[in-house]
């Protein structure tokens, strides 16, 4: 019986194999890195809400201040959703019969809450505190994007850990005068403004684990 011999083309396979073995791991890592990152998975998440509430209309055109509805944002960890009462302050008179507002009126009548879907949803083991950021001069827009231009609210930033750390390491990039936090269109007058604010208010965010995880 003739001994087994590899055909000539088999020689090529050696090189191919080499190349594949070289590149494949890198490719895989890249795939996981990009493909499984919140940047890819979460950004743009825009669930349908029980009431087609448009921030573009209220915050944008009408120019209602964020804090009119999200009233607790400056003293509490959570930026509370407005109560039906708050909505009714206007809608008792405005658009009283709009079918879109049916759930609102029902809630008002029955005292059952409107069930909004959470958009910016951090894991339970992350303890983010709105007041701590807003009071230091981190504007709403830094994390939520141009809410005032969103007919339907979607997640604008990845909200990943590294994303948080970027800002905790270089807060000056997102600092603004506390008076301007709800101003979506604000722009620093000078590139050094962030630095000055940081120095002025001694803002040195910690990157310790327990800052966010308990």
């Amino acid at each position, binding site marked *: 019986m003739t001994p087994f011999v590899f055909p000539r083309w088999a020689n090529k396979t050696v090189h191919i194999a080499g190349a594949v073995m070289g590149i494949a791991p890198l490719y895989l890592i890249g795939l996981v890195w990009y493909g499984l990152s919140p940047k890819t998975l979460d950004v743009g998440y825009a669930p349908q809400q029980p009431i087609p509430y448009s921030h573009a209309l209220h915050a944008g055109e009408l120019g209602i201040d964020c804090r009119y509805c999200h009233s607790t944002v400056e003293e509490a960890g959570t930026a509370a959703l407005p109560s039906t009462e708050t909505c009714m302050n206007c809608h008792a008179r405005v658009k009283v019969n709009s079918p879109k507002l049916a759930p609102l009126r029902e809630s008002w009548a*029955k005292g059952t809450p409107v069930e909004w879907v959470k958009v910016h*949803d951090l894991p339970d*083991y992350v303890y983010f505190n709105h007041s701590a950021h807003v009071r230091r001069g981190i504007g709403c827009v830094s994390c939520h994007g141009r809410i005032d231009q969103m007919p339907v609210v979607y997640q604008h930033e990845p909200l990943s850990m590294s994303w948080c750390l970027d800002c905790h390491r270089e807060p000056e990039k997102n600092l603004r005068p506390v008076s301007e936090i709800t101003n979506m269109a604000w722009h620093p007058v000078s590139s050094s403004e962030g630095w000055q604010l940081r120095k002025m208010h001694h803002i040195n965010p910690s990157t310790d684990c327990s800052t966010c995880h308990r």
Partner: protein
Amino acid sequence: MSSVKDKSTPPLYWRSLEERARDPELLERLRHEFADRDPGEPSSQDRRRFMQVMGASLAFGAATGCRWQEDKLMPFTRTPEGMVPGVPSYYNTAMELNGHSVGLRVKSYDGRPIKIEGNPLHKDSQGAASAIAQAAILELYDPDRSRTPMQVQGGQAAPTSLAEFKKFARKHFSEVMSQRGEGLRVLTTRTSSPSFKDMKARFGALFPLAKWMEYEPVSDVNARAGSVLAFGSVHRAHYAFDKAKVILSLDADFLGIEPNSVSHSRLFASTRVPESETMSRLYAVESALSITGCSADHRLPLRSELIKAFTAALDYQVSQRLAPPAGLGVAQPMPAAPFLADAEVKKFFDALVKDLVANAGSSVVVAGCSQPAEVHALVHRLNAVLGNVPNTVSYTQLDSTDTRTDEQLMQQLADEIKAGRVSTVLCLDTNPVYNAPGSADFKSLLAKVKTTVHIGRYFDETARLSSFHAPLCHFLETWSDGLSWDGGVTLVQPLIAPLHESICPLEFLASVIRDSETTSLGIVRRTHREVIRDDRTWRAAVHDGAIPGTEAKRVTPELRAFGVFGFAVNELGEMNVGNGKLEISLALDSHLHDGRFANNGWLMECPDPVTKLTWDNAVLVNPGTAKELGIQNGALVEVSVAERHITVPALLSPGQAKGSLRLALGYGRTSAGVVAGNINAAEDARADSVGVNAFALRGPGLWHFGSGATVKNSGKSFPLATTQDKHGIDPIGQKGTEDRLPLIVRETTFEKYKEEPDFAKHKVHHPPLLSLWEEPVQYDGHRWGMSVDLNKCTGCGACVIACQAENNIPVVGKDRVMMGREMQWMRIDRYFSGDSDTPKVSNQPVMCQQCEHAPCEQVCPVGATQHNHEGLNDMTYNRCIGTRYCSNNCPYKVRRFNYFNFHEDMKQERNQVKGMVFNPEVTVRSRGVMEKCTYCVQRINLVKIDARNNQRDLVDGEIQTACQQTCPTGAIVFGDLNDKSSHVAQLQGRPRSYALLEELNIRPRTQYLAQVRNPNPELG
């Protein structure tokens, strides 16, 4: 991370499972709740109503939620005034136990009460709370609580509705009323509540022939009787331990299970500061080693039955030395008791007498509730003779004149039932079938009663045998009131609307007597209408949790001369007695009390302060006696007293008096719940009973203690779950422990301390502790540290429960405790030294010491535990993969590992209510991650954020760890070491401050203040 997250659909807001199950009728009622807003009520009411609904929803808001699962947000329809979602609010209320009520402060998140602390405004509490009081929050959310009324027909219990029950009650009691209460017996617990008293009076007027009986398995009735003997009227003695130089406890665990222990502990601890000029000296004479005995400078183990003679002898000797005014009558003659001739006793006795006399006027003598009236009378006399009244002992008069013992009450009831004179028994918040004396055989008695109505928090042993059972609401669900130890009125306000279909006791009585006031709020306000006229004062009182200026006034009652007391043979016995003559004493359990808290997992798993036993009661035996009886640790023994037997494991207990047995009450529940035992429940809730019911031994001649007990070794053994000295310690272990004990718990005597205050610094000799590298972290901001005063710690365990409540620590069960997998972040290490009859006891709370060179940090392969810039040793649960290397490398072994998902049971629908007790500020750990004490980092962060938001500096003492907050003696102090003026910095600067295992150069942030005892030089 949080195990509850794995729920498929996030539940909408709900308060009971029926509601989650969308029971339409219930939802209807719920809506109704929103609709009607009674303008008459103070708006706090209003807020509460909304929050209780929000509560659960946010509970699960906190629990559920991750990307792949849609998370719902449910805002209020109308935001209650002054309420900010996600920001906790605090309410003052009170809890009744031992016939007096203690002020509590409850932390509530969005209407969901999550933690109980002491009420800082309350005189007795001053912010501290006992383990039992704190654990009440777990009881509120106990899935085993009775949820619907039950009607029993032919032994079959069928659930029915509250409406049904009310209909039945109205009908039945109007019939009884028409016969002027003929054959009606009301059985309740002893309560100090004025409103209850008021209702009782109204009840009596309408049911003149009915009898109202207040029964407590263990109460202060002996003390009342004693004061009648001494003064002719019922007085309560108040002890100013803080002014005392010499304290004598006669079988009185005033730091432990006896009434008002929280306040007593604080007062006592204030005299244990060696830095000050003087230190008190505590003598304890007791049969079983108690918390008080552990803190005593001198302790004489003596059978309880001998203490009467001991006191009489004391009376004789003391009176001999300081001839008391004739008004105080004559002293008892010296009893001819052989045990008094015993060398040890004599030495102790003589020294004691000398010390008491020397400190006449600034000493205190206390007798325990279990001691007979005569002893209490003698103690009143002793305090008078010693001139302690009114300096260290003062009195308040109690209006009650009822000095019938609980034993007599039960006997009377039993007789009447036998005689067929009882047609209806109403058990209000009491469980006689379980806790009546075994001799009474209440089970069969109850069968003779036509109608038994039971109202209680659990469908318990009595409920099973009743014709009708209705759930009783928890004290956090209703309005009520009570009297604190000094007679001041405390107010109980609801934190949440009843979770289940339960009724409040006051409202029930109101419905029975057709009261014009139907709500408990109305009733309570009516009771105090004289003192509180307008709403403003009322709100102020509710806010403070007490009505100011209502304390009873201190009086100095006239001591009556009383005759010579007789003694039974066993009361004048030898130091030791053989089998058959043994004394057995039945006492409240350190945590389960008389069994009413038995189904509370936190309490069940909290180690007994002295024996470190969990999940069982065992008969405690002196090691020497045990040898004579031929029984070893864990041997199952049959204890018999007058034809009554129980079989129970034995536990050799150093310090137990010779010839004396001690058994804790409160175990052996058969119908409590999955924790304590529920032998005939449905599949998902069935559980064997834990421990043995000691009430079975009770009967004529044995209430608190009695003699003539026989012990028979069954030859079998029974595994006991102790959190220390597992598997017993071999000679080598013994030796090793003795050798290193002086280095671990550093102690000296008051004299020696005065000569060498920094003795603790010289106990260990080690080379200079240098660092190999540049300090990785500079602590220029805060440097958190802690100081634990071993001289103040009594080992009561309140801190352990506080920690468990604050940090969502799971309960793991007996088997895992036996393996060594208990999860409590705090251990209270208890060491014995000296001989086993009169051991010296040291307690040492050990939690994570937050080392600066933390051994755990360097070995974690994923960096899940890291050092932060304030010196905290951060533990990041969600990064941990569970290699457990950190635990191996921790010299204190304070890290705890989740070997399983200890919240697994919450997947069962009936258990989901447990989720409501979680602290939303702390991650609920799932399976496979390491956890440990964090110095309550969540508390630190919240205060820091608030301070920063308001541009203010932190104030020392503003941040309190949970353990520090609740410690009755203030043994634990936390703060910023960089702030030289802070309390903790001062304490760590004290000469007797030392770091545990400092020689390892790990630089722990927690330091201990060495123990300084104050022994009598004559006793050495």
